[in-house]
């Protein structure tokens, strides 16, 4: 009973943020001279209007869910992993190269490619954790900056050593992966692939992990009060490394899923231009790092994006209105995070003076 109440209370703030986001969008629509009701109706149709659009939204949500889960887990442990994008790119690249060059039956290569993606993302994230543990470098900064290294490394790999030379277009991309290795589509003729099932399973698994296991308990206590965790015998460095590996692994999995399920090759810029990773971070913030909530928020954000595309197709209102809504959402969510961060710092200070 209590838990239901608490969950509901937890929902109030994100819903309020969404509402204010939609209000801001309404103003933007008015400014460009559109009809609010019609525009939002088109947006709804674009996201959920028919089965095709709906599955399209879910397909877009897939990498957002996975990247978001990774960020959520690190948040739960009290660490800022802002490196989901780089981890995703390295995951996608590794998956593509494994899928292209590993011999064997299709299903085997597919699984190996997914694992390669998870490992690449995990190792990249672990590297940031190691920099913190070894040199005390701030995770927020290292994870953020490691994104650039990963992005340009990926770009280089597909511009030179592994560039697709078969096609006529001189695109920075790998050759296409063999069809037997692809992640299966869930419905004939739709974009939605098995990666979505993996993402939902991951959300449930992460929920189970954080809430039911001993390690998950330690991770949550560490995030909630590091001193309390240390006092109780939780080893911070070990837990940080673990949560960073899992976090990066999930982002890597997101990249692998996109490569094996949607693009069938690694194309430079394709993972970052859609800003899946950043949407994932937003989903986490909206859901306050709750794994199942993150999945729901990710679908919501994906719907906002696919909806905006539908809106642009059928009205004179430009796609950017969707970005306005998302920006306002971000603003509110980050204000809330910033506020609780400040509050926590203040508490720490006042604690320090009373000791």
């Amino acid at each position, binding site marked *: 009973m209590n838990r239901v109440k608490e969950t509901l209370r937890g929902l109030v703030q994100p819903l309020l943020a969404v509402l204010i986001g939609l209000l801001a969008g309404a103003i933007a629509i008015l400014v460009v001279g559109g009809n609010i009701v019609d525009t939002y109706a088109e947006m709804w149709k674009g996201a959920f209007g028919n089965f095709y659009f709906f599955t399209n939204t879910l397909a877009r949500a897939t990498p957002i869910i996975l990247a978001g889960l990774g960020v959520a887990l690190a948040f739960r442990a009290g660490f800022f992993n802002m490196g989901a994008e780089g981890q995703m790119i390295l995951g996608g690249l590794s998956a593509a190269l494994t899928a292209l060059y590993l011999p064997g039956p299709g299903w085997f290569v597919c699984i190996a490619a997914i694992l390669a993606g998870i490992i690449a993302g995990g190792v990249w994230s672990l590297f940031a954790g190691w920099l913190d543990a070894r040199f005390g470098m701030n995770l927020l900064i290292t994870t953020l900056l490691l994104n650039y290294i990963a992005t340009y490394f990926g770009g280089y790999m597909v511009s030179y050593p592994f560039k697709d030379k078969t096609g006529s277009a001189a695109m920075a991309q790998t050759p296409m992966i063999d069809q037997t290795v692809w992640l299966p589509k869930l419905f004939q003729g739709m974009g939605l692939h098995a990666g979505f099932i993996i993402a939902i399973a991951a959300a449930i698994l992460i929920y189970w992990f954080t809430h039911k*296991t*001993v390690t998950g308990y330690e991770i949550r206590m560490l995030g909630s*009060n590091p*001193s309390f*965790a240390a*006092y*109780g015998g939780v080893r911070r460095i070990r837990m940080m490394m673990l949560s960073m590996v899992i976090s990066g692994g999930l982002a890597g999995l997101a990249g692998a899923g996109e490569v094996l399920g949607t693009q069938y090759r690694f194309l430079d810029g394709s993972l970052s231009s859609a800003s899946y990773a950043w949407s994932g971070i937003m989903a986490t913030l909206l859901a306050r790092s709750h794994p199942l909530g993150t999945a729901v928020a990710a679908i919501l954000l994906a719907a906002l994006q696919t909806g905006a595309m539908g809106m642009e197709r059928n009205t004179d209102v430009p796609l950017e209105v969707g970005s306005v809504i998302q920006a306002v959402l971000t603003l509110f969510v980050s204000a809330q995070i910033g506020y609780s961060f400040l509050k926590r710092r203040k508490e720490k200070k*006042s604690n320090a003076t009373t000791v």
Partner: protein
Amino acid sequence: MLLEMEHITKKYGSFTANKDIHFNLREGEIHALVGENGAGKTTLMRMLYGMEQPTSGTIKVRGREVSFATPSQAMASGIGMVHQHFMLFPSFTVAENIVIGREPAAAGVFDRKKAAAQVNELGRQYGMPVDPWKKVGECPLGLQQRVEILKVLHQGADIIILDEPSAVLTPLEVKELLANMKSLAKLGKTFVIITHKLQEVMDVADRITVLRDGQVTGILEAKDTTVEELSRLMVGRELVRMDKPASVPGEAVLQVEAVQLSGAKDRSALKDIHMKVRKGEVVGIAGISGNGQSELIQVIAGLRKPDGGRVLLSGQDTTNWPVRRIREHGLAHIPEDRYMWGAAKDASVKENGLMGHHHRLQKRGMIKAKAAKVMVESWIKQFSIKTGSAETKAQFLSGGNLQKLIAAREFAQDTPFLIAAEPTRGVDIGAMETIHAELLRKRNEGAGILLISSELSEILQLSDRIIVMYEGEIAGELPAAEATEEQISLLMAGGKERV
């Protein structure tokens, strides 16, 4: 009558914090408001100070009915309040803190010299001198409190409410505070002192109002009552007298040898500490907080590594062991700061209770949720912890109830050695009784207990041996049976001679 509060009732939803309370003040008296945690003392005073509004009832100042919507309205009627947690700006000077809100100005610019002169005059007038130019952050807590009182006086208060004023003070500072209150009362100021320390009440108060469960259970003249009668009125029953059988110490369970720790600014936090806790005894560490006690606890518990020396627990050198291994080897720890070390506020009561037990209550990496719930619920019952349920977040527990939860958790570790740092800080008499009884029971069963407390009475009551710390060193050690409060106070203040 200077002040009358009549038929005051305050409800928060379905919860009644104050029920039909009558409270009055005579001019120039010191009036103690006593009661256990949650008895409604602070609520009543917050209404008098305009921070809350009564659901019903009237307040009269000098016979005139008033109602305060904000503290500034209460101040205008001559009511001032000093809160338990000081509301001062540490980076500003004493004078700036005192004149805040009514700063003297010259041509619209804050006149610091005039402010300092005012503060000097104020201090002289009331016999509480302060250095107006000193930064508040550099003043000891006793001086900070004096600044708070001067601030209230500067605002022109005739009625001064002090919420738990002695909670953070050293015994000497408490004496000084009580003396100051008495002399101010002679000058016509009226005090309300909220406290649960009954000895202080007997020392300073003229009249006493006792609250229990939001109702008045007694209004007494201090000279006609006793500590026993007051505690009976507070708790609603006779307190059991604790009998403490003589200690039969066994072999050493904790040995601290030549421990050194460097602190901030080239000062050492711990200098060559040697000490020992044997099985079946309580060793009390007295000292003004900030003299190395916290660091010593952290070194013993494995939270900080010493720069020199070693710690032996049950005969094994645990100096460089990780915390978990030390705990599993036989250490439990009631930490001195429950919010910083003892709990995670946004985790549930159950999750907070699980800490340290979580490796035991597992099956193949999964937490045995049911067993954990049963365990925590048994503590809730045994220590009568007031909480919605085991799923309530710890932040919704009052400080005293959270302390009970932490104490229960550490008692349940069932270890041969226990660190009890400020084990009863902020808990009510009933709970204090339970925690003290548990500590003694553990001792009688043969465990060694290291008790750190800023309450001298607690140290004297429970300890078999007393160690006094001063500036990171052991200033003296004495058997509890022979120790007097004066001796310990002297050592605490840096009186060097060994006793």
